[in-house]
C-alpha cells in the first residue's frame, strides 16, 4: 500500500470522524441495505475501497450517491459504524476534488433543493421539480404525476418564504463551497 493510499483513508477517517477501520466485513450492512441492488460495490465494499485507498473508484462510484442515509445499515452493524456519515463525507470529498460524478441526477436534485432553501428559507417543491426537470433536460417523465399532485393541491404554486431570509443566505455564503 502506497502512502497516497494511506493518506486517502486517513483523510476520510478525519473528515467523517468515524473509525470505519473497525469494519469486520460481515456484510450485515449490505444485506439490509434497501438500495443495494442499484449499487456497484455495496456499503462494505465502499469501506473496503477506502481502506485500500482506491480513491478514484470510491469517489466516482454511484454507491455514495444512492445511499439515502436511512440508517438500516448502522443499526445492523455489530461495530456500530455510522455508514451514512461516511457516505456524507465521501460525497463532499468527491465534490471538492471535482471527481467525475456518475449520478448527476441525484446531485442536481440536491442542488435544486439547496437553491430553494437559499432563496426562500424553505423548500418550494413545485419549483424544485420544474428546475430539476429543466436541468436534466427531461421535461416529460412524471408529467402525469405532477399534474395529479397539482390537482390534489399537494404542490403549492407559490413558495412559503421565511421573514429573515438574510440570516439563511448568510449561512449559504459562508458554507456553500
Amino acid at each position, binding site marked *: 500500500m502506497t502512502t497516497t493510499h494511506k493518506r486517502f483513508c486517513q483523510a476520510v477517517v478525519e473528515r467523517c470522524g468515524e473509525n470505519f477501520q473497525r469494519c469486520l466485513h460481515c456484510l450485515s450492512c449490505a444485506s439490509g441495505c*434497501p438500495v443495494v441492488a442499484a449499487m456497484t460495490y455495496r456499503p462494505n465494499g465502499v469501506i473496503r475501497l477506502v481502506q485500500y485507498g482506491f480513491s478514484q473508484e470510491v469517489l466516482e462510484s454511484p454507491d455514495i450517491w444512492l445511499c439515502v442515509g436511512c*440508517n438500516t445499515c*448502522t443499526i445492523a452493524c455489530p461495530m456500530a459504524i455510522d455508514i451514512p456519515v461516511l457516505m456524507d463525507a465521501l460525497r463532499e470529498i468527491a465534490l471538492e476534488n471535482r471527481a467525475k460524478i456518475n449520478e448527476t441526477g441525484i446531485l442536481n436534485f440536491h442542488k435544486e433543493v439547496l437553491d430553494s432553501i437559499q432563496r426562500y428559507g424553505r423548500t418550494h417543491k413545485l419549483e424544485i421539480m420544474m428546475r430539476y426537470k429543466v436541468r436534466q433536460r427531461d421535461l416529460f417523465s412524471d408529467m402525469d404525476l405532477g399534474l395529479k399532485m397539482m390537482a390534489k393541491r399537494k404542490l403549492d404554486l407559490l413558495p412559503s418564504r421565511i421573514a429573515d431570509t438574510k440570516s439563511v443566505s448568510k449561512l449559504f455564503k459562508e458554507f456553500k463551497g
Partner: protein
Amino acid sequence: MTPMLREMQEISYFPGCSLATSAKENNQSLKEVCAHIGFNLVDLQDWNCCGSSSAHSINSELAFHLACRNLSLAPAGRPLLVACPSCSTRLRMAQHRLHTVPEAREAYELRWGRPVDPDLKIIHFFELIQSRGPFGRQPVDALNGLKFAPYYGCMLAQPPALRYERSYHGLMEKMLGAFGAQAVSWPYPARCCGTFLSVARPEVVSPMIDTIMRGALEAGAECLVTACAMCHLNLEIRCNLKNRLPTFHFSELLAIAYRTPIQKSWFAKHLVDPMPLLKERRLVA
C-alpha cells in the same frame, strides 16, 4: 373537541416543509389530535427548512447551521415538537453536536446571540401520544376492526450518536389497537421507502415500494399507516402494483379514533382513495 378539565399545555411546533405543503392533511389531523389530548401547538416563529436530506448529503456544515437556526428560535420553557421524523433526526443531531462539542456551542452563541438552551427538549409526535396514552374513557370500537400494516419506515433506525434516545417501536400497534384496529404481522415495518431517490431514480424506488405494498397485501392488511409524510407520498406515487392499498397518516387514524372533527378534505388529498375503505368499515358517515 378539547377536553374540558385538563389545562392546555403550550408546545413549540416545527411542522417542516412536507407537512406545511404537500401533506397538509397530516398537519391538520395532527393538530386536531394534539388539541384533543391537551396540547396547544404554537408554530416556531419563522422556522426554516431543516436542510432536509440534501444539505447533509452534500454539505454537512450547512446542514448543521440550518438546523441550529431553528433551535435558536425555540422559546425557553417549552418542548419543541417536530412533526417529521427526518427533520427530527436533523435537529436532534445538531443538538447532540451542540451538547458534546464546545467549539460548536461557542460558534452557535456567537452567531445567534443567545446561549444554547441545555433544557430544550425535542420531541416527536409519538412522544406526546405516548404521554397521554390510549386510556381513559375511549370507545374501544372506534376503529371497528380496521386491519392495518404499521409502517414506521426508517424513523426507528437512529444513527449511533442517538442510540440512547427512545424508540417508538410498537406504538402504532398499541394505540390503534386500543381503539379496536387490528395490526397485521408483516415483514417491512422498518423498511426504507427510498425517500428522495423517488425524484432522480424512480426506477430504484418503485421495486422497493412494490415489495412493501406486496408485503402488506400478503399479510392481509386493508391499509398501511405511516409515521412520516415522505413515506406516505412514496407509497402513493411509486407503487406499480395494480392492487394498491390506501395509506393513512397515523394522525388521521388517531383523529378518527378520538372522534375529533374529521375533514373529508384530508382524505381527498390522498392519491389512493381511502374513502371506500373508511365507508366499508363505517369510520366516516
